[in-house]
């Protein structure tokens, strides 16, 4: 390190000669902090999103690096939230990257004391078979006076308030077509 570099590297020098006379910004920066970059600067892409917790609907920016979520921040453009997030919204990155998340299908046989693994497609196929069997066992064509019922009361579903409108639309459409009407969600409670 030459003398000149040494002197210029001295915060007081930078404070007196640079654009930061109070020494609270660039002048006081160390080499380490100069070498730091925000995760938001190096992201490969940013998705405009919305907080998944309460119904305020705060705007989020989801930063992605190497195919993984690297940061989630409040969206300063949002007229609802003006960039802010509460503790829950701020924890969204921990939510989506939580090591506790289940990423494989789990299956518990009747009377079993443990979980087993199951292929996703097999699970889907088994569920479809069970739906058809439940319809078979509980189907009601007409009431006692011959008026149409077209339904099964053997199938129930609960949930929807954490899901997208498009998802709720398909859920309701499919269940209605299969004659299942005992469909409910958090709005009832």
């Amino acid at each position, binding site marked *: 390190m030459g003398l000149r570099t040494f002197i210029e590297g001295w915060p007081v020098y930078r404070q007196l000669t640079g654009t930061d006379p109070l020494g609270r910004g660039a002048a006081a920066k160390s080499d380490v902090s100069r070498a730091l970059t925000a995760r938001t600067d190096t992201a490969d892409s940013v998705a405009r999103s919305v907080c998944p917790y309460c119904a305020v609907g705060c705007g989020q920016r989801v930063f992605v690096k190497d195919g993984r979520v690297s940061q989630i921040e409040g969206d300063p453009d949002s007229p609802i*939230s003006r960039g802010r997030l509460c503790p829950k919204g701020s924890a969204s990155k921990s939510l989506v990257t939580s090591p506790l998340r289940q990423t494989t299908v789990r299956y518990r046989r009747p009377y079993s004391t443990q979980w087993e693994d199951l292929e996703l497609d097999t699970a889907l196929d088994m569920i479809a078979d069970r739906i058809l069997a439940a319809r078979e066992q509980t189907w009601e064509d007409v009431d006692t006076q011959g008026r149409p019922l*077209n339904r099964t009361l053997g199938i129930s579903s*609960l949930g929807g308030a954490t899901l997208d409108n498009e998802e709720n639309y398909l859920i309701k459409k499919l269940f209605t077509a299969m004659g299942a009407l005992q*469909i*409910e969600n958090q*709005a009832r409670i």
Partner: protein
Amino acid sequence: MAEAHPVGFQWVMEAKRKGAKVFHVDPRFTRTSAVADEYVPIRAGTDIALLGGVVRYILDNELDFREYVLAYTNAATIVSEEFSDTEDGDGFFSGFDPETGTYVQDSWQYEGHEGSSGSGHTAQERDSAAGLTHESHGAPVGGQTRRDETLQHPRCVYQILKRHFSRYTPEMVERVCGISQAQFLELARAWTANSGRNRTGMLIYSVGWTQHSVGVQYIRTGAIIQLLLGNMGRPGGGVMALRGHASIQGSTDIPTLFNLLPGYLPMPHHAEHPSFDEWVDSIRHPGQKGFWGNARSFAASLLKAYWGDAATPENDFCYGYLPRLTGDHGTYQQVLNMIDGKIKGYFLLGQNPAVGSAHGRAQRLGMANLDWLVVRDLFMIESATFWQNGPEVTTGEIVPEECRTEVFFLPAASHVEKEGTFTQTQRLLQWREKAVEPPGDARSELWFFYHLGHKLREKLADSPLPRDRALLDLTWDYPTHGPHAEPSAEAVLREINGYDVATGRPLSGFAEARADGSTAIGCWIYSGVYADGVNQAARRRSRHEQDWVAAEWGWAWPANRRILYNRASADPDGNPWSERKRYVWWDAEKSEWTGYDVPDFEKTKPPSYRPPAGASGPEGIAGDDPFVMQGDGKGWLYAPSGVLDGPLPTHYEPVESPVRNPLYGQQANPTRKMYAHPVNSVNPSPPQEHAQVFPYVFTVSRLTEHHTAGAMSRTVSPLAELQPEMFVEVSPALAGEVGLTHLGWAHLVSGRAVIEAKVLVTDRLTPLRVDGRIIHQVWLPYHFGFEGLVTGDSANDLFGISLDPNVLIQESKVGTCDVRPGRRPIGPALLELVADYQRRAGIVPGQHAPAVTTDDEGKEHGAS
């Protein structure tokens, strides 16, 4: 609000900075109270008495916004002479049928409409939670009414209101709610002083108001005040519902609810709606005024979206395919049916009833008695592991080796791993872009249901059975993309928006809906969200680049309108009520409505328009009738139909209360929905014996750091660390009375369960003086369960099942319990403790007190 909707609360603070006075009414002092101008502690379950007191204060002092009230509400409308009030019936309106515990509403009607409009008998409406259909429009009422513009007629709504609330005096408010008269008057003065031509007041509530056996009437009372003060349809006014999940509004609009179809169309009832015409007429009420008159187009377009080419005018658009209601098929009835072995399979889609629903034990016992259960969630939640780790395994009520339920756990995609729209609490749809692929087997619900639908159709492809036609004829051909064949959410949104069947052109709004099969619309109130083939919900023009209404951020239903009924922000002649509160007004030069928002009125209908005699539908709405979805164009101070437990709100005690109703002989809402099932029970309340076995009131709510049943927060380390333990807040006085120590343990006992919690002794709970005695309230967070990073007993286990009659929501904001020091027993001893309390309280599981209150002499009140 600062606790549960923190970022929304910034706007309350902005208003405060600009001079707004903030009142916070809550049983518990919270972060909201800390920054409010005034904190008003209240006894849980008594808000109608408080708000009724405000109504009386307004009317007695003639502080209503008279010009607004006369022109825009039904204050002047004359009611049938057959109507009699709760003042005359000791807590009952006319028309009560003790047999069914519901009302016949004929006598509640406007004069001249007796029996000709409205709901008639309401037992079936209660079972189908019919009140929910009014989220987008008012209940039926004949268009032509008799009015007395002087408000002097003894049977005009204004005078009826006055009589109804005449005993809700400041003294009564103090006696019922435990709020001092001085504090009540300060609230009433501030509210009325900050309403009118130049100022507006806003009312904000959340589930603290809805989760009651009289929940709907809480909101009604708030709406009555806001109408009397002229605070509806105006900027800075309104009744703001703060909803608790990212898209709980969306899941009501596009309902995963048993009694509704998209856009608040009712699910057909087997007896009421045997044919398409009868179904449609029950919605549009021929002859009625207002926009609901176009219901046939909305209904036909929905069926067209569902069944495409198979749906034709000749076959009533496959109306026959729709399943039919026969009664109550709500979530609580379902759970009891599960316990009784009537239900085979259950899907849980991002909901955790083992912790989040009332009567957790009933929920878990029900799930333990299924053929199969499919749980789709991010985390291994209590509702997936009840058979292994639930409290009933400890008590021996669930034995894994004997539990037959087959459980499929399918991991779900998170909000950043799929694209789609959430509808937030102000009806605003916001599109989310997808950031990353979901991990492993995790998939969106869109993926799951789309592919499940295909599997079912493949398996049924050769089926000759008529019942399988609805599945096989369903339009189910969404384009897919990506490695997992993810269906296109945009294509689904386009169907929700609606399109012209012949050309595929996306519709610009619901005005384009047709009843002849030429349009298909998945949810008519969302029509316009894909106008011009553009995803309007994805609009993100920065707040810095537009005005404060921010109309180009996302898209609000209906028609991107941000304030409903905003015609009321102008006076009858179409001019702003004041410069300060200018919002939407009539531009006489251009002969059209204009303003900051999309006017909630036909654009070129002048204020002077008067409908021709006998006009119905939109044509029947006069140029100065702002409430265009109501059958008479008016805001309803008095609801002649549509609200099942009365045309006016009435204070009833909570189903479980230590206090005898000071206002009426009738103790609790006589029309509440009750379930006599061995697993269910209600703690006794006066005048029943043994109420003192459960002497304390408990209430529950959210912590800022946790979310609902905890599945998205007790699993997330920063949040779990911030709130690591189940606790109960008690006042120093109660701690002294019961012998609790700060940071020690307590257990709470109800007729259903016993739970334990760490004790927080705090002044945040105020002992209240009610009717001459001290009432202690305790508070609990309801987020805890037995899975996740932090665990604890579930507060919802304490509740039984009693529901509001209008929408079948449970009373889970107030109940009674006993509080004891120390930890709860475990294993069979726990069951014995609950059984002992049941014995002492005279509770016989499966029986409940009669709906009509019976006094000591065995005399029934009111229901003569």
